[in-house]
């Protein structure tokens, strides 16, 4: 039922494109030069040509096609990476993004020639504000981590305006690694608040931790354990009482659309990952888009330019923002990705987005209850759109979470995230998303249970896995020791 890439017979691996290169072969073609030829002056000229491959177009096509065939995507099969929302990417989004009226817009075109694009952004902004309970959006951040850093720089600008920037940002110990990394880059110090026995932020520890050195707190809700932070109002109060701000990491927004809005929970800044919640393709690791939305009091600090609307219903890039933190992207963010996000949001509408979250949470709960006897949930609460199990019971057979993951590859599936969040031993973080059918979930649960049985009966089968993939386990230590980073 899956189309996972399989190992083929024959010589090991696919050679690089360079190995196909023959001097004088070519794919390129240019028209005859129709103006006098000019050469670059000796002082600036390149002395030897770059060692790029010389191949026929057919070589290029077969090579790249073969690379695609040894890769696994959502279109290939189930892809339950936690906090990544690997849902189906609607094809219509690719169609609309390729309209020349979007794809061929030059970023230095004057505003009156891109009114349709600006209106699209304006409408998307209104939708994102409605969804999050926020007041104003910046589309500049090109990914979630960039949204985080942008939000933290906004916090810095806000506090600086009110006296001094403050020193610390509080993050839960279960947070994604980008959170603390962004904190450092924004000039703050990351302070961890522990999780309690329920896997939630320990509110009493937080209350002791916060003081007037705290600029803010970053939180995902539901958190990276897939659990809703039920005491969110207490958390918000604790941070707001000392004058701090709340940052909502939108990695898990897919769980709550239409059910609760970050703004209503007390958050001041929100980033969204369009490649997660709004099904823009993950691209093998990007491009994403990480628009941020803020409450009224933070609106003056957003990166300039923002999108503005005049009384006469024309639109403009608003550069006149004296308190702005400045640009965080060369132009206006990943516009081409935002076209796709627009298509997704308005295709679904308010009712459809609420159904998305309902089905996503249903799928995660259904799958969790099917596998939890073999892979106990890390914490007892009801999971939302994802759950974190542990493969710890299998350790007595000498089998670890990574072995289960590799065995799942042989059984035809992309594994879940493993070893994250860090607070759970042998973590397996599973996010099925709403676009998977019950049959797929059943088959995946069967595979996980089969792997658990095999861990007892034939642990070597797991430790040796995968054997069907295009390559077997790779020597990562050797890759880091004997660096070979180019041909």
């Amino acid at each position, binding site marked *: 039922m899956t189309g996972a890439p399989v190992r083929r017979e024959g010589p090991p691996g696919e050679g690089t494109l360079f190995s196909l290169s023959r001097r004088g072969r070519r794919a390129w073609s240019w028209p005859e030069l129709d103006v006098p030829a000019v050469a670059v002056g000796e002082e600036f000229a390149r002395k030897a040509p770059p060692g790029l491959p010389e191949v026929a177009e057919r070589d290029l096509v077969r090579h790249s096609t073969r690379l695609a065939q040894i890769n696994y995507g959502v279109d290939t099969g189930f892809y339950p990476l936690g906090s990544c929302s690997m849902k189906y990417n609607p094809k219509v989004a690719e169609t609309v993004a390729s309209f020349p009226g979007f794809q061929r817009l030059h970023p230095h075109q004057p505003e009156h020639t891109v009114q349709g*694009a600006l209106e699209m952004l304006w409408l998307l902004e209104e939708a994102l504000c409605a969804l999050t309970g926020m007041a104003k959006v910046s589309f500049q951040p090109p990914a979630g981590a960039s949204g985080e850093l942008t939000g933290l720089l906004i916090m810095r600008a806000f506090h600086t305006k009110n006296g001094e920037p403050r020193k610390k940002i509080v993050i839960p110990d279960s947070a994604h690694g*980008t959170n603390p990394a962004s904190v450092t880059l924004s000039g703050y110090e990351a302070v961890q608040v522990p999780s309690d026995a329920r896997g939630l932020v320990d509110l009493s520890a937080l209350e002791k931790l916060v003081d007037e050195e705290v600029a803010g707190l970053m939180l995902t809700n539901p958190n990276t354990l897939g659990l809703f932070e039920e005491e969110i109002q207490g958390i918000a109060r604790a941070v707001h009482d000392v004058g701090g701000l709340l940052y909502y990491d939108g990695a898990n927004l897919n769980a709550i659309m239409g059910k609760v809005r970050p703004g209503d929970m007390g958050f001041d800044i929100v980033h969204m990952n369009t490649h997660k919640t709004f099904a823009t393709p993950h691209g093998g690791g990007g491009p994403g888009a990480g628009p941020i939305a803020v409450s009224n009091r933070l609106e003056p600090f957003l990166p300039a330019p923002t999108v503005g609307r005049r009384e006469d219903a024309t639109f403009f890039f608003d550069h006149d923002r004296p308190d702005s933190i400045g640009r965080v992207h060369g132009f206006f963010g990943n516009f081409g990705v935002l076209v796709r996000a627009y298509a997704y949001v308005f295709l679904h509408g308010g009712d459809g987005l609420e159904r998305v979250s309902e089905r996503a949470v249903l799928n995660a709960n259904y799958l969790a209850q099917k596998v939890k006897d073999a892979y106990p949930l890390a914490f007892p609460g009801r999971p939302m759109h994802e759950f974190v199990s542990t493969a710890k019971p299998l350790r007595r057979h000498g089998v670890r979470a990574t072995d289960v993951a590799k065995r799942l590859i042989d059984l035809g599936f992309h594994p879940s995230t493993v070893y994250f969040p860090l607070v759970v031993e042998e973590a397996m973080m599973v996010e099925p998303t709403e676009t998977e059918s019950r049959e797929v979930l059943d088959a995946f649960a069967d595979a996980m249970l089969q792997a658990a049985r095999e861990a007892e009966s034939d642990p070597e089968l797991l430790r040796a896995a995968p054997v069907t993939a295009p390559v077997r386990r790779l020597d990562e230590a050797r890759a880091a020791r004997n660096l070979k980073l180019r041909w």
Partner: protein
Amino acid sequence: MRFAPHTDDDVREMLGACGLRSIDQLFDQIPPSVRRDRPLELPDGVSEMEIVSDLKALASRNRHAEDLVCFAGGGAYDHYVPSVVWALAARSELYTSYTPYQPELSQGVLQALFEYQSMICELTGLEVSNASLYDGPTALVEAVNMAHAATKRRRVLVSGAVDPRYVEVLRTYGRGAGYEPEVWETPEGRQGAPPLGDDVAAVIVQHPNFYGVLEPAGELFAAARETGARAIQVFDPLSLGVLAPPGDVGADIAVAEGQSLGNHLNLGGPYLGILAARMQDVRRMPGRIVGETVDVEGRTGYVLTLQAREQHIRREKATSNICTNQTLMAVAAAVYLGWLGPDGLHELGTRCLSKASYAAERLLEIEGIELLFPGTPFFKEFAVRLPRSAIEVRDTLIDRGYLAGVPLAEAGGHALLVAVTERRTRNEIDGFASAVGEAVR
């Protein structure tokens, strides 16, 4: 529900399997005081046909680089994108995958990135490339962070002929990282005298620079390196078929906007941040890096490597916060460079240079138009001084079917930055020159 495949029976039975009777119960852990009790203030969903019509209507209200003859540059260029690039990069096994955390199932993306890294090294004459960053300006920020880490110094010197958007982005991030970029003046459109000292972390030169002018970057970099600073070059990847590469010029770190490598204009994104460096800085580099290794049977394969630099391992001590990057753009760039090869790249560079030179000659024939920086050599872009407001001239030319270029603040707003790529024909250039002549008359 459009893309969720659940039937009503599925929902009922799946809820039952969870011991629940209603969907609402799935959300019981949300406190009633914050839980929403009314629908979202958004329109209802529509069919695929309707969303296509909606977006077609919005798109039709834009002019674009197919219906306007494009002479605009300023960091984004109307280069030809061969059919093969997106026929391959848009294979859905690639574009519907994510960061290759499970390398056994991700050899396609990993190998494509390894080949991309290799080609960037070949292009730049530097030793190591990462697997992509967001865009040119944010790549410069990362390069400066590397320079800080390497030198333990704070000052950052930027040539006045670097694209001002790059400087703006650097200034934004500098507020967090604790530096303020110092821009040195370049009154003749290039070079100038950077205020070097033993507290300088980075010296940044763009070559060809924002005005299109070729910089004597080698001299500036030699002086910078003498003081122990890192020399950072902002380069144009498509210039490197004809121009000496950053490695030969003496750059320690080179960054670029990679949009021109097979990516569409897209109103400014998604683009491609390129960053290459010398091996001395490999452990300070940001983001993903792919390395070659072997599997347990000795078969060649690829993995993400040196991950101890990265946020998911090193958290607050990571070299950068970047996670999701611009992988698909890097894959497209690798296909495009594979299509070009060394000769195609050289021919392309010759075309850009020759056509830009021809366009400049034609424009300079017009009374009252001169080069903003007379006597300076350029590659595919040059700035002219017009006898009237460049914004007015540009807007007039839109009505004639031309996207004339990027108006600059220089010369009292009478300066226009004009870019000429291989796509422009002699006829288009002649037509453009006569339209400009009429517009300034």
